[in-house]
Each structure stands twice: as C-alpha cells, then as structure tokens.
C-alpha cells in the first residue's frame, strides 16, 4: 500500500448494500430519543407532537413517490417486511388465486418467500432474464391470467442496477386484473417516480438505501387495493401494521426522502458521470473484464464488473487493504458455494461469475475517489491473475477449459 493511500480517507462504494445516514437525518432523529419520546398513539401532548412528526415524514415520502395520498404509505421495519407484507396480503385477499409471477433475479426477500409459498401449494412463475438481465414481456404477457394473485417484480436489480419496465408491466397486470407489486428498494431516491399516474398497486422501499436509518421502510399501498395485514395487534397505521411506530426511524426516513428529492438531479448527472468514468477507466485498463447487466438501462450509481479468472472475495480483500469498500456476488463472500443467482440467471460463465465486483456510488463520492479506485483496480487484478491457473503472462491460457484439469469438477 502506498503512503498516499494509507493516509487517505477510506472510499465507500457499497451504497447498494447500505448508505451513510445523512447528518441532517441523524440530527432530526435525536430529539425523538430524548425530549420527544411520547407514543404517537397516546392522547396527550407528549404523543401529539410525535404523531405530528410521523405525519410530516409520511408527507415527505408521498412527495418522493409521487403518490396521490399520504395515507397510501404504511411504515414497516424495512424492505423485507414491505415485500413480505405485499405478497402475503395479495394472497390472503385473493384466496381463490394460487399463482404468483416474479423473476429469477429478485432479491431474496421475494425469492425465498416465493420458494416457501411454493412448498405451501402456490404456483410460482419465475420470469427468466437474458444475458443482459432483461425480461421478455411476451413471456410475461402469456403468464398473466385470472389465476394470478400478484406480480412482484423489482424496479432495479441490486447487483447490476438493471431497470425493469415496471410501469409498463403494471399496466399489463392491471389489464389482466392482477395486482402488481414492485420491490423498489434500490430505485427509490434515485429515479423520479409518479405513482399516482402509474398502475403500480404496491411498492416497497427501505430507509437505509437512501441515506436514512436502518430498521425503517415503507410499503406504498394504492388506495382501494384490498389488503390484509402481516402484523396484527394495535391499531397503528390504520390497523394495517400493528406495533408501536419506530418514530426516530420514521423521522429520519422522512428527512432522507426530502434530501433524495433534492439530490435527484445530481444522482442522474454527476453521480452517473462518476460511475461512467469508473467503468471506462477499468474496462480500458484491465483485459478480460466486462460490465454486467443492461448497461443502457440501469441505476445511475451502479457498476457491476465481472473480472475473468479471479475470485471476487480475493479482489475485495485487496481493495479493502487500500481502503476501498465494494461488494461481490461471489460465492465465497456469502458462505454459499454457488455464485450469485443473478449472475447465474444471466448465464455468466463460472470463470467470470465468481469474479464480479459491484461498485455502487452515492452523492457523497468525489471524482478524486473514483480516480483512486480506477488506479488501484488494474494492479489488484493483475496481482491475483498471477496466482490463477487460468492465466499466463499477459493473457488467459490458450484454452482455459483444457489448461486446468482438476480431479473433480
């Protein structure tokens, strides 16, 4: 590690995992741990002040999402609870319908729930993606029927940033009389939204993905959509989500929503330009690597690069040594032995799928940081390729499949 790098501030490029809670959000939350500690359901002044703050935050979210009514926002503990609530509510509210449509590349909050529901007798139709992570809308149209209780499709993929045409898909679902839910955890705060003009019935979001606190999220539920709560108990959230509200989290989320709206333009110009600068620098300097996903239709902050013939965790460790934080879809970072289900769904070869690195930026990143990362990556990849049995000198061995002949495969 160079002295310069050792003395430099660490660089955080793992914002799709979580973001730093904005200082403004933290400051707004603090009083709700101390002097404003009342229960918003209480009928006295301690509760009334707090209830007002909860209402203000709801209005901020309504504005960010372009929802028609603030009452369409239900607070949850995060994106996972919102996803689970949406899908399970749709099934319970439509007990005669036993089919679910989703995709092979959803977040595990949706996929693992669907796997469980399949064991309980539901039929889950998983839309496949092509090598760029894109859906086939004709296949989707063919699956829509009056047997389907709900469609759940992510707005943006957390690994590649690939955007799905959820507004169009919601219209198709509505035409078929099917409820449409989107896991928009990665998209909210990065893309302009106008839900009141869309056919989207339910949408999940999470606070800590948009510079809010962890442990708070929300489910958008279009007015009039039949709903069954996941948690039952008290009458909080109009009886749609029982449990005393996480007031500091809600206040922090509200401020984060305001800030996200304020910085939306920056996200789509300056941050996008930084992402493209990093992509160009790495792809130009490192042989045998490529950006995964639909690079023309993806989140402005996300860059996922597959480095062939090296393994992701090893790359992350060397990046970390230089103070650079990113993430990997490689098997070894998760304890599983299979590479990311998203990479497998796109058919990325194993020699590349295990070497994927996701760089996810935020409005806090600078051009100097991006240039430092771009300068560090080529040496790291070259260092690891020197160890790889699939690499020789300046390039891959002539036939990687034959060059290495293990006793089991």
């Amino acid at each position: 590690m160079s002295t310069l790098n050792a003395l430099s501030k660490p660089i955080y490029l793992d914002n799709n995992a979580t973001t730093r809670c904005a200082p403004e959000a933290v400051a707004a939350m603090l009083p709700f741990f101390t002097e404003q500690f009342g229960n918003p359901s209480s009928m006295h002044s301690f509760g009334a002040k707090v209830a007002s703050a909860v209402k203000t935050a709801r209005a901020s979210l309504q504005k960010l999402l372009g929802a028609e009514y603030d009452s369409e926002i239900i607070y949850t503990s995060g994106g996972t609870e919102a996803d689970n609530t949406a899908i399970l509510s749709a099934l319970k509210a439509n007990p005669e319908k036993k089919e679910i449509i989703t995709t092979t590349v959803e977040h595990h909050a949706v996929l693992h729930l669907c796997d469980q529901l399949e064991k309980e007798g539901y039929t889950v139709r998983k839309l496949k993606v092509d090598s760029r992570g894109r859906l086939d809308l004709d296949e989707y149209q063919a699956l829509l029927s009056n047997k389907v209780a709900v469609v759940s499709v992510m707005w943006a993929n957390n690994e590649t940033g690939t955007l799905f045409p959820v507004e169009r898909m919601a219209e198709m679902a509505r035409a078929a009389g099917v409820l449409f839910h989107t896991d928009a955890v990665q998209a909210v705060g990065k893309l302009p939204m106008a839900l009141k003009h869309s056919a989207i019935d339910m949408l999940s979001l999470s606070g800590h993905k948009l510079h809010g606190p962890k442990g708070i999220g929300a489910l958008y539920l279009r007015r009039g959509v039949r709903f069954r709560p996941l948690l039952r108990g008290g009458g909080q959230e109009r009886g749609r989500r029982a449990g005393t509200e996480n007031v500091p989290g809600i206040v922090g989320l509200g401020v984060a929503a305001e800030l996200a709206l304020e910085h939306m333009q920056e996200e789509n110009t300056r941050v996008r330009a930084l992402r493209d600068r990093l992509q160009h620098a790495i792809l130009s300097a490192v042989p045998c690597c490529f950006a995964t996903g639909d690079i023309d239709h993806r989140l402005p902050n996300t860059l996922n690069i597959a480095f062939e013939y090296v393994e992701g965790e090893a790359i992350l460790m060397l990046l970390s040594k230089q103070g650079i934080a990113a993430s990997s879809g490689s098997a070894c970072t998760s304890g599983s032995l299979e590479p990311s289900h998203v990479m497998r769904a796109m058919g990325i070869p194993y020699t590349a799928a295990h070497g994927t690195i996701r760089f996810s930026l935020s409005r806090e990143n600078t051009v100097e940081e991006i240039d430092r990362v771009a300068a560090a990556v080529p040496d790291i990849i070259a260092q690891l390729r020197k160890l790889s049995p699939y690499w020789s000198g300046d390039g891959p061995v002539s036939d990687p499949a034959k060059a290495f002949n293990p006793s089991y495969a």
Partner: protein
Amino acid sequence: MWDYSETVKDHFYNPRNAGPLPEANAIGEVGSISCGDALRLMLKVDPDTETILDASFQTFGCGSAIASSSALTEMIKGKTLDEALKVSNQDIADFLGGLPPEKMHCSVMGREALQSAVANYRGTTWKDDHEEGELICKCFAIDSAMIEKTIRANNLCSVEQVTHYTKAGGGCSSCHEGIEEILARVLAERGERFSPAPPPAKKPRGKLSTLERIRRIEQVIERARPNLQRDHGDIELVDVDGKHIYVAMKGACAGCQMEALTLSGVEQQLIDALGEIVKLVPVKSTRSPSALSPA
C-alpha cells in the same frame, strides 16, 4: 468480511511459493469451478529420497483458498511424500490460526491437491470421494452432499437421525429447515413423504426372549445391507454378547472414512428396535466369534 486470523491475512497478502514451478515432477489439480475454487499444486520431488525439495501453487479462489495453498506449500517442503501425506486439512487450518467453518473446504482442497500430486508422482490416479455442495450446518461444516449421501446410505427419515449420523443440526439448530428440505427431496426420490413431526413415542416393550432379540438384530442388519451393497460394501452380524453386538464391515465399507457414521447409524436403529442401549462393535473376522478382535 470474514474474521480471518492474522496468519491467514499474512499468507493471503504475501503468498509464499506462488506461481508455476518449471522443475515440478508431481502435479495435483483439484477444484470445482462451479464452486469457485481450483488449485494446482506443483512439487519438485527428489527421486532418490522422495523428499519434497520445492513446492508451489496456483489458485483460483478466495482469500482463504490462497492462504491455505500458501500454508500447505510451506508445511510440506522438506518432508518426504509419506510424511507430507500425514498433513491433514485440520493441520493446514491450525497452521493458519484457524479458518471460519464456512471456509474449511479450502483446507480440504489443499489436502486433496497434495494427495493428487503424490498420486501423480507415483503414477497412479487419485480418486476423490468428495462432493461439494451448499454448506448446510455451519457449526460442524457439513455440506448438502454429505447429508444427502448419508440419508441415502442409511435410509434416514428425520432431522434427529441426520444429526446422529453426521452431527449436522446438532449445534445452533438454524440449519434444521435446510436439513428438512434435503430429507423431503431424498425421500421423494424413493416415493416417500417427509413428515417433520417427531416419530411417535415408543411403546414400552416387554422383555424380549433371546431368540426374539437376535431376530430383531438380524432384521436391522438385513435392512442396512442393501444400501451398503450399492456402494460396494456390506455388513455382517458376527456375534451377540449381552449389550455388545459384533459385526464385520466388508468391501468398500471396511476402512471407509464414513465407517464410524455408518456404524453409529446402525447402532441407533438397533437401539430403537430393541428398546435398550447396545454397543455395535466392528471386528475383523466372521470366522472365530470366540476370538473376536476389534477392527
């Protein structure tokens, strides 16, 4: 990020003996690209003394795979092949100051590469009996392939039995759902349905006559045999002496790494069938029950 020891980090950041070894006369290649790790171990062996004069590696793998490979080369240099073969995967992990349970397969890969390289030097082919699958029990580092194999070999039908045979699920219990999924899949293959309900409570039994007791023992042994025979092994009842039941392990089962697991599984079935605690003892011979010698 994994909680790696300082030694693991040192061997990862400063790998020893990395890269091709042009003078190598023994090469072992193991790994599974689908699982994300592959290792080529190269040795330079003195033909007169079978001493490893030099060793190097190339690895496609994670931090602990690289560290394990580096450690292995350091551990075996200067040893004879026979001495090197005594290095276990646990020795590699210990050398590194420990590995996370999820990463123990990296040390196993090192051990296997060594076996493969020695076989290559001696002109034979090393055949692994290792299958990798998703890690199910993180407490005891047991993967799905091992659980599936054990369920099939022993006709298991409950999580409790899987724990008896493999240890999987015997720790924090967070993997019980995963084990149930494997049970459901394997039982479905043989036309049975997995029931997560605990087995019905055993009815108290009256005391068995000696003949009934031996018949039940024979029935249990006979039930176990077809599965073992499919794997080119067998088990035979030799003698019964009070609480001790003597059996001979045959064919591939004799000396198999899974022998202890197989025996403990059969022992559990005997305990269930007899309603008493018994001890299953492997012996070498079926010919002379009066002169039984432990295997």
